[in-house]
């Protein structure tokens, strides 16, 4: 099996990509992929404090924002654009619900990752200040693949649970 092992000075990576941010899809692209051919009509909701409280009580997940970006789908169902707090950053995602309120699909819209958490630490980065010019290895853009210990998707799972509860308690009760 052909593979080459390199130890790249961390500062070379810090310079190349201090934070690995990947934009997978825009909200519009996600709508087109998740409901092909359908027309989506915005039906944004501002949750009342009482609604927020009852959602938290029912699903045991904190509701961080009263603003719910939901679209009605011409072919039935809902499209919701929302976000959860990941390890450090907001992770925007889109949820497609069918006309019964069941999950049709989930797409992560944007993701930020670092080469280890320490890259985000100012003090850690400071130790490489001034070393950027003599970086022995030129990197052609980002390293796009990271093999590592599994990151949990728990926060996204919790976000989906919260939106399903929001659907039950709020969206499903709205007249069309």
């Amino acid at each position, binding site marked *: 099996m052909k593979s080459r092992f390199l130890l790249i*000075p961390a500062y070379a990576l810090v310079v190349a990509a201090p934070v690995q941010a990947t934009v997978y899809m825009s909200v519009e692209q996600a709508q087109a992929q998740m409901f092909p051919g359908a027309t989506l009509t915005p039906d944004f909701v501002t949750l009342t404090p009482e609604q927020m409280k009852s959602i938290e009580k029912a699903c045991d997940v904190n509701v961080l924002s009263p603003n719910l970006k939901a679209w009605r789908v011409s072919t039935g169902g809902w499209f919701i654009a929302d976000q959860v707090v990941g390890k450090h950053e907001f992770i925007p995602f889109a949820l497609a619900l069918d006309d019964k309120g069941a999950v049709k699909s989930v797409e992560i819209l944007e993701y930020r990752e670092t080469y280890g958490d320490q890259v985000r630490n100012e003090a850690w980065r400071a130790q490489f200040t001034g070393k950027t010019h003599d970086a022995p290895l030129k990197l052609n853009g980002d390293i796009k693949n990271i093999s590592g210990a599994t990151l949990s998707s728990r926060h996204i799972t919790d976000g989906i649970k919260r939106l399903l509860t929001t659907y039950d308690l709020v969206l499903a009760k709205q007249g069309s």
Partner: protein
Amino acid sequence: MTSFSPNKEVERARPLLGTTVNIRVTGMTEAIAHTAITEAFAAVERVHALMSFHEAESDLSRLHAAGPGERVQLDAQTARVLMEARRLSQLTRGVFDVTIGSRLVAKGLLPAPDAHHPACSDANWEDIEIDEQGGARLRRAAWIDLGGIAKGYAVDRAIDVLRAHGVAHGCVNAGGDLRTLGEGPHRVAIATDEAGVTHIPVLEVGEVAVATSSGRANATPDAAPHIHGRTRVEVNRYQVATVVAPQCIHADALTKVVLALGSESAPILQQFDAVAYLQNQAGQWTGIGTAL
């Protein structure tokens, strides 16, 4: 929205298999890339539904719910993964053993399944019988966790789907267990979860699978995530093992063998045309079956 520029890179991510799975395709028209990715995700979802430890309808849950000796018809994919798991158990004489589920439950790393039969404490991989028709029976009650092998298998299935759509360049990454398409070279950074490192390990590979397991990940003061199948003792939680192999199912499973056996895993790796990189507690790297 659809562009016909063939050099476009399309990448999408979904929360699956308890992690984030992302699929990247290059060199296809955007429309074909999206279709290929959607169907590749469906293949991963299928593996998830069949082999989940948690979901009541999964093949595993049905097997756990059945009484000792009772035959359960499995999907061909589940049967294939269980047979590969058995093969690895045979080769490692039980170091790799998917019946450690009960131990992971006891350690609080997995929730107890809704099974009528508590796992027999000394049940092991030899208690899993698979027949030629894809049926399985457990000779003694055991809780099987495919968390150490099914993710790699799901990556392989997704790669098959991409290939069937004519995709020649891309990558499927299931939370760090990945497989590339195309000769690249692909650069793969290895996340070691260390604090304050000055160097980042990076692999340059062609068309291949790369998987990494770390004793540091998800470790709590009481429990490290990897267990030696034969001794049922936790393996050193300060090591990181990366395996490069043609198939991701093998790369994924072999990381646990390397964590448990270290350089003694060389002859086993060779059987799968695989090599490994192991980082010890002091942060030093060793190549197994390969020079550094």
